[in-house]
């Protein structure tokens, strides 16, 4: 019983901590990915704005 209990205890500990660390790593990767995406979209917005400004200047001339 004691030996068997230890096996299940170790298995349960492994499940808990491995699951939590995998989930934490998953969240970190998702945050990184969305930050990269946000930076890219912001760059796109700036390009779009510059283009519109150029068009407006051309039309004024």
């Amino acid at each position: 019983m004691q030996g068997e209990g230890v096996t299940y205890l170790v298995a349960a500990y492994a499940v808990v901590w491995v699951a939590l660390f995998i989930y934490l790593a998953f969240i970190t990767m998702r945050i990184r990915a969305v930050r990269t995406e946000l930076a890219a979209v912001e760059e796109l917005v700036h390009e779009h704005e510059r283009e519109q400004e150029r068009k407006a200047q051309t039309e004024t001339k």
Partner: protein
Amino acid sequence: MALANRTTETKPRAAATAAHGSRPDRLPVVSIVLGALSLVGMLVSIWADLIYAPTDAIEGDAQRIFYFHVPSAWLGMLSFCVLAVAGVVYLWKQDERWDWIARAAAEIGVVFITVTLITGSLWGRPIWGTWWTWDARLTTTLILWFIYIAYLMLRSYMGHTPAGARAGAVLGIVGVIDVPIIYESVNWWRTLHPQAVLPIGSSPNLPPQMLLALMLSLATFTLLYCFLMIQVYQFQKLQTQARLLRASVE
């Protein structure tokens, strides 16, 4: 990230950021503190659970599973309460930030309830001689797991829309009924599952050393839960900002 430091805000970017506050470029201080405390708490809890707490005379070492089975169950249930409260406030105020909290609570809650079910099975095998039994406590907990899955599937299917947020809020409010049923199941029905170790309104049914180890684990898991909530909330916030910006150029 360099763009975040620019001071000249144009209209679409201003709309995306003004609606939801400034974009965080690094972890908030509270998040760093919670993360550090969780890490220290984990180390202390492992020591307390495996070394400090005495071995149970009847159940042996398998009883030590309970030191993280109980905190996981507590957080799985607490998380659903957070989800329901955030749903109520969202329906009342129509503020998207409450929906982010609900989504974060659902995602983290399902992790803790899954851990609860797995560790419960791992405890049940040596103690009851079976991985699973259709006991009232186990069955109601499994129902909560299914409600979480239903919530996440519904939100995934309906996307980031107000209708999806409203439907999720309603599901959360209806689903929270299962939480008190889980808690009271051991009193309402004859079950194999042990009685509550921390009954509300009466003294704990545990020796002091075991109680201390359990309290340490409860505190650590709660800190970890708060840390994870902040991370997932930040993720939801950044995702919404990216979506709004993308919509502004399309």
